[in-house]
């Protein structure tokens, strides 16, 4: 079973004693602020977890893997994630 935002809200509610609606509001605002930061093209560094980095990709020629046809892949911005050594250590403990 995958962990979802609802599970995180539940944990904040149980562990920290906020009301359900307050826990939900704060958690939502945290994720929304993260999205807005990346939307602006700004790097987001969460120490102990990892960095989210928006990267601008230039237009390039790709291929439709099914037909082999060459197609242009438009310039775009993508978000990459690099895990912190702390997170990697926790996953390999």
């Amino acid at each position, binding site marked *: *079973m*995958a*962990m*979802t*935002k609802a*599970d*995180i809200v539940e*944990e*904040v509610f149980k*562990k*920290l004693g*906020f009301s359900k609606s*307050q*826990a939900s*509001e*704060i*958690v939502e*605002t*945290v*994720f929304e*602020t*993260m*999205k807005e*930061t*990346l*939307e*602006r*093209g*700004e*790097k*987001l*560094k*969460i*120490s*102990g*977890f*990892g960095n*989210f980095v*928006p990267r*601008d990709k230039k237009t390039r020629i790709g291929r439709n893997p099914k037909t082999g046809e060459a197609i242009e892949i438009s*310039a*775009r*911005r*993508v*978000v*990459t*994630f690099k*895990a912190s050594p702390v*997170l*990697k250590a*926790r*996953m*390999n*403990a």
Partner: protein
Amino acid sequence: MTKSQLIETVTSRIQNVSKKDVELVVETIFGCMTDALAKDERIEIRGLGSFVAKTRDAREGRNPKTGEKVTVPRKRTPFFTVGKELKERVNVKRAARA
């Protein structure tokens, strides 16, 4: 933006909440996410993206300095896939500027 700047921004956007409270919530969020990945559990944050732990097999590597052969042990790494909403939002802003 760093974690402490994120905490400050969130605090300023919500009424009647202290910076300390937001700090505790932020630590809980990333703590939960770290625990999930440590347990090999997938994380799905609608709109942001999903995280999944993948295992990289042990392999023969080489010390680039000495050329000596070393065994790189099997290890687990998290992978992030951007969610639909974030993927689109990141590109809308970009298109508007161009």
